[in-house]
C-alpha cells in the first residue's frame, strides 16, 4: 500500500470517529453513537468487498470496475495489472505454441508423437498421407495396431534409433524409412520418410555398374586374348615388346577390376540366399590359400604362420568366404615390406563366436585411413600401392561379404608395429565337427 492510499484510509477512519464523537455530542449517548458509526464503517467495508467479489466473479472486466478510492482503488488496479500481464503472457505462449505446431505440421516427414505405451498423442499432416493416420479417430490408439508390420513392432519394442526400411502397407511401390526417437520415458517420436526415389536411384546406380562391367568384359577378353597372341609371336619387333607386355599387364589388371566390380554388384543386388549356405571347413580353405597362392604372390618373401582350428566349421557361401580369406591374406602380404611375419588365425572365442584373424608385423596404417579402408578404390598411399597390383576393391568386397554373413569386421593398427584384421562370425553360424 503506498503512502497516498494509506493516508486516505487514515482520514476515513478519523472521519468515522469524528462522526461518532459528533453524534455523541448531539445525542449524549457516546457509546451507542460510536458503535453506530463503526458499524456503518464495517457495513461500508463489507459492501465494498461484495462489489469487488462480484466484479471478480464476472471476469473482472475493465469496464465494470467498482468506483472506489484509497486502498480499494489500489487493489483493483493491481488486479487489472496482473490480469493484463497474464493475458499478454498467454497470448505470446499460444503464439509460440502455434508457431511450433505449425513448424512440425508442415515438416515434409510424417511425424507421430507417441506416449510410453506407443499410443498416438499427436500426428502431423504428412503422416495422414504417408501412414494414413486420422488424428480425430486415432488419438490414443496404439500405433502398432494401425501399422501392423512385424518389423515396426520390433522397432517399437527395441528402443533403437536405427532407421528401418519398409514397404508402405498401402502401396507396394512406396518405400518408407521409419525412425523412432525416444525423447524421454513417456514420449517418443516416430518419423517416416518416403524414400522411394532414393531407393530407385540407388538401384539405378547398382544396375549401371553391373551392366557396364558386364558389357566391358567381353571386349576386354578379346583384347587380352590378342595381346597374348602378339606376345607369343616370334616375329614381334623387339622395340615393341615392352609396350605389348605392359598392355597385356594392364588389360589383365582391368579384367581383375571388372571381375571384382561384378562380384560387388552381385553381392549388392542378390544378397545371400539361404540355400547357398554350406557348412565349410575354414581351416582347409586357409591352408589351400596359403599353400598354393601365397607362395606365388610372396615368392617366399614373407613368413606365414598358421594357427587354425581344424574342427571349427562355419556356415556360409564357399566362394564368398574364400574371397574374404584370399583378400585379407593377400593384402597382408602385398602391403608389407619383405620379411614381415603374417599370422593367420582361425579360432573360437569364449562367447562361441568364431573369428578369423590376419595379423602382420608390417608398417601399420595411420589411424585416419582406417575408417575409409573399405571404401571402393580407396588407397592409403596413392603412389605406391598401384605398382603392387590389386584392384582397390578387395576390402569393399570383404566388408560386403562380412555384412551378408551377419559378421563384423574390426581393424586395429599401430604405426610401426603392424595391423590386425579380425572378422567375427556370430555363434549361430558356427559349428564343430
Amino acid at each position: 500500500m503506498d503512502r497516498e492510499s494509506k493516508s486516505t484510509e487514515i482520514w476515513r477512519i478519523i472521519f468515522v470517529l469524528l462522526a461518532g464523537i459528533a453524534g455523541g455530542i448531539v445525542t449524549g449517548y457516546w457509546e451507542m453513537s460510536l458503535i453506530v458509526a463503526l458499524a456503518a464503517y464495517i457495513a461500508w467495508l463489507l459492501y465494498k468487498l461484495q462489489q469487488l467479489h462480484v466484479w471478480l466473479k464476472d471476469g473482472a472486466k475493465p469496464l465494470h470496475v467498482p468506483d472506489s478510492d484509497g486502498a480499494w482503488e489500489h487493489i483493483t488496479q493491481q488486479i487489472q495489472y496482473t490480469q493484463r500481464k497474464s493475458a499478454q503472457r498467454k497470448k505470446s505462449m499460444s503464439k509460440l505454441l502455434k508457431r511450433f505446431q505449425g513448424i512440425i505440421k508442415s515438416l515434409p516427414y510424417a511425424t507421430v508423437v507417441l506416449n510410453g505405451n506407443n499410443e498416438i498423442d499427436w500426428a502431423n499432416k504428412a503422416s495422414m498421407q504417408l501412414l494414413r493416420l486420422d488424428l480425430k479417430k486415432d488419438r490414443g490408439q496404439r500405433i502398432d495396431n494401425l501399422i501392423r508390420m512385424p518389423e515396426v513392432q520390433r522397432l517399437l519394442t527395441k528402443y533403437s534409433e536405427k532407421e528401418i526400411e519398409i514397404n508402405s502397407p498401402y502401396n507396394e511401390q512406396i518405400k518408407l524409412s521409419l525412425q523412432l526417437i525416444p525423447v524421454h520415458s513417456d514420449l517418443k517420436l516416430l518419423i517416416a520418410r518416403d524414400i522411394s526415389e532414393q531407393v530407385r536411384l540407388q538401384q539405378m546406380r547398382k544396375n549401371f555398374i553391373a551392366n557396364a562391367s558386364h558389357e566391358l568384359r567381353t571386349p576386354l577378353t578379346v583384347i587380352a586374348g590378342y595381346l597374348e597372341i602378339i606376345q607369343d609371336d616370334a616375329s614381334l619387333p623387339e622395340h615393341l615388346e615392352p609396350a605389348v607386355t605392359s598392355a597385356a599387364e594392364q588389360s589383365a589388371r582391368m579384367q581383375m577390376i571388372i571381375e571384382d566390380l561384378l562380384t560387388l554388384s552381385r553381392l549388392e543386388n542378390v544378397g545371400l540366399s539361404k540355400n547357398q549356405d554350406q557348412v565349410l571347413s575354414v581351416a582347409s580353405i586357409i591352408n589351400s590359400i596359403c599353400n598354393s597362392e601365397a607362395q606365388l604372390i610372396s615368392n617366399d618373401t614373407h613368413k606365414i604362420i598358421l594357427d587354425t582350428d581344424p574342427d571349427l566349421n562355419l556356415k556360409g557361401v564357399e566362394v564368398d568366404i574364400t574371397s574374404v580369406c584370399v583378400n585379407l591374406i593377400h593384402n597382408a602380404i602385398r602391403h608389407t615390406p619383405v620379411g614381415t611375419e603374417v599370422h593367420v588365425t582361425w579360432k573360437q572365442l569364449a562367447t562361441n563366436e568364431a573369428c578369423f584373424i590376419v595379423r602382420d608385423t608390417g608398417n601399420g596404417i595411420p589411424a585416419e585411413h582406417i575408417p575409409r579402408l573399405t571404401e571402393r578404390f580407396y588407397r592409403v598411399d596413392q603412389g605406391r600401392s598401384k605398382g603392387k597390383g590389386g584392384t582397390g576393391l578387395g576390402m569393399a568386397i570383404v566388408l560386403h561379404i562380412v555384412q551378408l554373413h551377419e559378421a563384423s569386421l574390426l581393424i586395429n593398427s599401430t604405426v610401426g608395429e603392424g595391423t590386425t584384421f579380425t572378422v567375427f562370425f556370430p555363434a549361430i553360424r558356427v559349428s564343430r565337427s
Partner: protein
Amino acid sequence: MELGQHISQRYNAELEDIRNKVMTMGGLVEKQTSEAIKALLDRDGELANEVASSDDVINQMEVDIDEECTRVIALRQPTAGDLRLVIAVVKVITDLERIGDEAAKIAHYAKKLAKKETVTGMHAELSHLSQLIMSMLQDSLDAFARLDSEQAIKILSQDIKLHKEFNVISRLSITHMMEDQRNIKQALQVNWCARSLERIGAHSQNLCEYVIYLVNGKDIRHTNLEHVRRKYFPEV
C-alpha cells in the same frame, strides 16, 4: 465404444493386451498374405517356399490368444462390451488363422506355377483380384483396431465386386482349358489361387461382421445387408 474403464487396472491391461495381440497376429497374417501374393505374381519360387513353410507362428498365436480369452472369461466373468470383445476376439483369430492357411495354399500353388513358363496369361486379372483382397484385409483390420463399424459396413458391401472379379478369373481359366487341354493343369492351379484369394476376402468380411457385433452389439451374420445398413447405418 470405450475400452479401459474398469476399477481393476489388471483387468484393463489384460483386455488391452488381448486386443494388441490380435493386432500383432493380424500384422503377421497381412505380411504372409502380401508375400504369398507377391510370390504368385512375381513367380518367385523361393519366396513362395518361405511363405508356405512359415505358417506355424500364426497357428501358435491363435492357440495362445484363445487360451488367454478362456482365462479372462473364467477369472473375470466379463459382461456387456467386455464379453463381446472376448467373444469377437475368439472368432476373429479363427478367421485370421484361416486366412493364414489360405495364404500358405496360395504360396504352395505359386511354387508350382513359378517352375513352368506360364501359358495362361492371367497375370493382370490375378493382380487385380489380389489388390482388392489386400485392401479388404487391411481395411477390416483397421476397422477392428479403430472399432469403426461404419468402415466395416462399407467393406461388407464390396461383396459383389469380389464375386465379379473371381468369376472373371474362373471364366478365363475355363476358356484356357477349352483352348488347349495341356493348359488344364496350370489353369486349375490359377483357379485354386483365385479361389483362395476369394476365401481370404470372405474371411475379411467375417472380421467386419465381428466388428459390428462388437461395437453395435448386433449379430448381422446371415442377414440382408441392405436391411442392416438402412436400419443401423443410415448415413453410410
